[in-house]
């Protein structure tokens, strides 16, 4: 598939894997950017400093680079030290509308198809578009609207999953069917989904549930047998905004939402602080989330082996409460679980990491690995085979990538 760049040999790759993380960390400790490369002709920085990334099965790093009017895609075969030329996704200029809680997404399937999801202002603000490339980014399909009712209902906060067969799932917050219980609060929307594959195209939109807190990003992951699981902040009884799990059952029906976490956060507000989920190969769901509930305040970790019916307790508190720990991400690879989050000391944003080698029972001490002053995206964890990478995008330093694998 990779026709227009030279693939490294296996021995070169081995050296690359050994040296690159060391080099990247060394760069960081000397205050230089770990993996910043020139942004070609885009200007100095991505729109709001937000970049999306994913590893292809062959180890190529892909990044999606938004500007005011366009979405570009580039790849790197040297872990982000240099990038290819840019490939434009949207042929017509659009007003790109993204923010840290509503970032664009890039996902590479097992077959090497590049899937891109982004937001632009059209009839509705921040409307979702999808496009894909089967020729390593050289050409992209005409961007299509994800929602059937994009002209009349806002749809945003999307998640995109690509299963092992290449089937794409889209999940999003949708403002249609606004018959939510007004007594519970404001900003309550529905969660919709659709699928796309080459054989059947895009299915009609289907509603999964109402009662979704509109401004907190919903998290999704696939089970070992390729079924999607959703972790969402919902507006529950008495207006409590706690987290629930929903999953696609074997009969292809969606389960009822199971309230997995009881924080008792009774508030009618926009927290703009969504959760994250990662499922290991034995089916354990690892969860991280933010709350200012009666029971606890801050960011927390817990896991469940039955999709929310029983959850490890008490939740593990993450970070220094005096430094506003927030926007956590989680990644499970076999028995290893990796966590990251951001903290702010009034001047600079620090990125922290912590790991477990026994599926979330015991934990290392947390440590700071990156920091910057200025605007930044939320930190993300990326899987590259058995390796865990931390990806962080900032206005000041661009894209930074660190291997945080604990062998």
């Amino acid at each position, binding site marked *: 598939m990779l026709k227009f760049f030279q693939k490294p040999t296996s021995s070169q790759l081995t050296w690359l894997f050994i040296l690159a993380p060391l080099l990247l960390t060394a760069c960081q400790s000397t205050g230089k950017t770990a993996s910043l490369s020139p942004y070609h002709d885009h200007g100095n920085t991505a729109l709001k400093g937000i970049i999306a990334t994913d590893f292809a099965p062959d180890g190529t790093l892909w990044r999606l680079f938004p500007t005011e009017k366009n979405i570009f895609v580039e790849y790197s075969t040297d872990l982000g030290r240099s990038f290819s030329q840019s490939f434009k996704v949207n042929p017509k200029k659009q007003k790109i509308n993204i923010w840290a809680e509503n970032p664009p997404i890039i996902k590479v399937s097992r077959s090497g198809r590049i899937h891109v999801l982004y937001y632009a202002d059209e009839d509705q603000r921040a409307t979702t578009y999808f496009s894909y490339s089967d020729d390593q980014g050289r050409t992209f399909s005409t961007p299509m609207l994800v929602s059937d009712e994009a002209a009349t209902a806002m749809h945003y906060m999307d998640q995109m999953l690509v299963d092992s067969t290449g089937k794409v799932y889209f999940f999003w917050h949708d403002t249609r069917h606004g018959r939510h219980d007004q007594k519970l609060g404001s900003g309550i929307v529905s969660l919709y989904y659709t699928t796309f594959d080459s054989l059947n195209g895009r299915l009609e939109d289907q509603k999964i549930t109402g009662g979704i807190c509109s401004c907190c990003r919903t998290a999704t992951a696939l089970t070992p047998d390729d079924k999607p699981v959703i972790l969402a902040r919902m507006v529950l009884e008495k207006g409590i905004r706690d987290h629930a799990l929903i999953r696609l059952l074997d009969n292809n029906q969606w389960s009822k939402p199971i309230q997995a976490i009881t924080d008792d956060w009774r508030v009618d507000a926009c*927290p703009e*602080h969504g959760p994250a989920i990662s499922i290991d190969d034995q089916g354990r769901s690892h969860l991280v989330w933010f709350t200012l509930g009666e029971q606890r305040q801050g960011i927390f970790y817990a896991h469940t082996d039955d999709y929310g019916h029983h959850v490890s307790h008490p939740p593990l508190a993450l970070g220094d409460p005096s430094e*506003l720990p927030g926007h956590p991400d989680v990644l499970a690879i076999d028995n290893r679980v990796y966590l990251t989050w951001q903290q702010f000391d009034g001047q600079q944003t620090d990125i922290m990491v912590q790991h477990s080698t026994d599926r979330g029972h015991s934990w290392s001490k947390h440590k700071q690995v990156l920091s910057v002053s*200025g605007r930044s995206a939320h930190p993300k964890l990326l899987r590259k085979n058995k390796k865990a990478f931390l990806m962080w995008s900032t206005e000041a330093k661009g894209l930074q990538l660190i291997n945080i694998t604990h062998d």
Partner: protein
Amino acid sequence: MTNAMTMSRFTIFISTLLLFFSVTLSANEANTTNALKLGSYQTIVEQQAGHPLVVVFWSITCASCLKEMATIKEIHQEQPHLPIVMISIDDISETPLVQATLKDKGLSDLESWVFAESNAQRLRYEIDSKWYGEIPRLYFFDADQNRRGISGKISKADWLELLAG
């Protein structure tokens, strides 16, 4: 000729009247939205020293904030001398929409600001080092500048209780 003269004078009269009203209206609306930078918040608070003050942080995309505005309008009508400062946490490029929203909600004569630091977190931290950014976020100051912060939409009864101290 006379008719034409009359029409002309009438037109001038109407035009002058319209001009007068439009000037008066725009003066009443006083809807300049200021850019909130590091230090601005402290200035806002200091300017109201010795008086009660309410500062409301909100966003054009926050449904809870937009609902809260109905209560703010009621309080403003009942207590027109109570200073209520509206601070939008949206990007400064959204200023036209911020102003249009305030106008639509009948709040365009309130003092209005919009975040103008690219790193919004730094600005929030300066305002309140314990604030994660959830909105609406309201601060009630008494005449001695004691501050009480509360997150989320609250009822009119809550407003009156907080204003009573």
